[in-house]
């Protein structure tokens, strides 16, 4: 072995015996990394891995019985009432995702384009639009439930006084409108988030590109369509990804506004509510089935991880294209 070069670091290391330094370093690494690793392993990794394993066991209440193979999944997909409940809830998650993409993210993109034009008051608007994102969904849900109360709520009062009384209805009490209404409440709370992300994406477009396009005679729309939109692809990918994750984890809003069964008549039932009822027991029927609950958790897990992974790959590829 050649002796190490005399860098300041090696001199510092040579001062005590080298062996004790190395042991000391190990100890320090353990001290620095130990607590975080242990905490994360015990309360995140272990529960998630166990949740996957739980779906392959038979359950009686909260007690684990024998190995059950794929029995829980078979029951979930092929037997009444589970398959109906699963299909119903899954479809609602899909609807929430689609409506959120179109309404919330569509409007957010438009707002970001307007803000990026350097309109007067952009800084203030930015702060205002983002404000509801900080509010708890419990506050937001209860507030809108009061506003949408069929008799005393202001929404129907406003419609009536605007001569649109025929539109007044129990928005959250009618299974035709409940899910859409809930999705729009959610959009009211979240819209500032995609707005800021899109705005940051637009502002990151180099000015030279825009000027070059304008010099070539491109109009505002053409600049937006052919210069800004392609460069916005990473921001769009992130928002699609986060919207998907958010839509399929939807829990608080339907829970506090419509109850754990996703009323009225299961019209706002979603996967997380179904999962919660199977795990901790349904109020009205007393039905609890941890096997089914764990199977739902595995399905959601696969769905979320798969989509996140696809999103991450797309994102990396698009960033490479830009570079």
């Amino acid at each position, binding site marked *: 072995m050649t002796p190490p070069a005399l860098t300041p670091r090696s001199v510092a290391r040579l001062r005590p015996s080298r062996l004790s330094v190395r042991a000391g370093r190990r100890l320090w690494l353990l001290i620095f990394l130990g607590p*975080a690793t242990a905490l994360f392993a*015990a309360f*995140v990794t272990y*529960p998630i891995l166990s949740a996957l394993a739980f779906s392959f066991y038979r359950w009686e209440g909260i007690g684990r019985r024998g190995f059950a193979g794929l029995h829980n999944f078979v029951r979930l997909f092929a037997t009444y009432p589970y398959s109906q409940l699963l299909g119903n809830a899954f479809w609602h998650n899909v609807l929430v995702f689609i409506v959120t993409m179109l309404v919330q993210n569509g409007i957010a993109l438009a707002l970001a384009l307007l803000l990026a034009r350097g309109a*007067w008051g952009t800084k203030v608007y930015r702060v205002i639009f983002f404000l509801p994102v900080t509010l708890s969904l419990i506050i937001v849900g*209860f507030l809108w439930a009061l506003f949408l109360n069929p008799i005393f709520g202001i929404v129907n009062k406003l419609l009536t006084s605007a001569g649109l009384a025929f539109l007044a209805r129990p928005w959250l009490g009618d299974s035709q409108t409940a899910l859409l209404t809930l999705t729009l409440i959610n959009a009211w709370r979240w819209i500032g988030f995609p707005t800021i992300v899109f705005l940051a994406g637009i502002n990151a477009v180099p000015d030279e590109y825009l000027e070059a396009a304008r010099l070539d005679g491109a109009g505002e729309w053409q600049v937006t369509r052919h210069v800004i939109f392609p460069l916005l692809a990473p921001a769009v990918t992130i928002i699609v990804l986060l919207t998907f994750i958010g839509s399929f984890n939807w829990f*608080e809003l339907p829970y*506090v506004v419509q109850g754990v069964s996703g009323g009225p008549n299961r019209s706002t039932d979603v996967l997380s509510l179904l999962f919660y009822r199977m795990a901790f027991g349904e109020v009205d029927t007393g039905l609890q089935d941890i096997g089914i609950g764990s199977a739902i958790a595995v399905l959601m897990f696969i769905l979320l*991880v798969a989509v996140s992974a696809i999103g991450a790959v797309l994102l990396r590829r698009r960033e490479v294209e830009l570079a």
Partner: protein
Amino acid sequence: MTTTRLPWKVAVQVILLANAVLVLAPMALMGLSAFKSTREIFQNPFGIPTVWRFENFARVWVEARFALYFRNSVVVTLASIVVILVFGAMAGYALGRFRFSGNDLLYLYFLSGLMLPIRLGIIPLFILMRNLNLLDTHWALILTYAASGLPSAVFILTGFFRALPTDLDSAARIDGAGEWLIFRRVMLPLVRPALVIAAIYNLIPIWNDFFFPLVFIQSDRLKTLPLGMTTFFGQYYTDWALLFAGLTLAAVPVILLYVMLSQHFIRGLTAGAVKG
């Protein structure tokens, strides 16, 4: 983008203003209703209160136990954030400044937590907390929040520690400073901006969380604000004056903090979705 004609500018202002009203009007209405009587809310929902009833807030604070729920939320949130920052900074420092075998693997292990939806592990977590005798205690919440908040803190802080110049800790080592002293006195002060981002990124979701208290907490005296509010709404569902006062009271601290630190909040909460 400055070459815009006046009619365009007016149209843009109208749209932006309309959206600002859509955001602010419900909150303003909430705040105004909080000072009215229930009868006045029903009869004159949009007007200024004829009498400003501050007693609504006093009743919510004492009678509806908001003082208690607030205290619980503060305790749980602060404790979780402290654990996240201390352990996150220590791990980030080791991962960002030390070369050792398994460094990359451990980093990726923490990173996986950014994608894994911890809520899906609620059944085993519930059983774990029961076996540890931690159900219906604040510890169940603090441990869960701290553990699930660590990946973001490790991610943010490792990046910051990595970016610091290499001679810094070498110089301190030559001066004979111990490892802990180097970490605490030399390196940690330099990553303060990252600590702020990591704190805000976790602060709002923890403060607002409803799911874990719903599962872990039974006793009314241990409920955090979001869970306490569902109890409150169940008890006072006909007393709209009190409901609006409760909503306002719950919203005001976060709104005030946001108004004071809006740029930090926007940057912190969109961290990961927005670069830089």
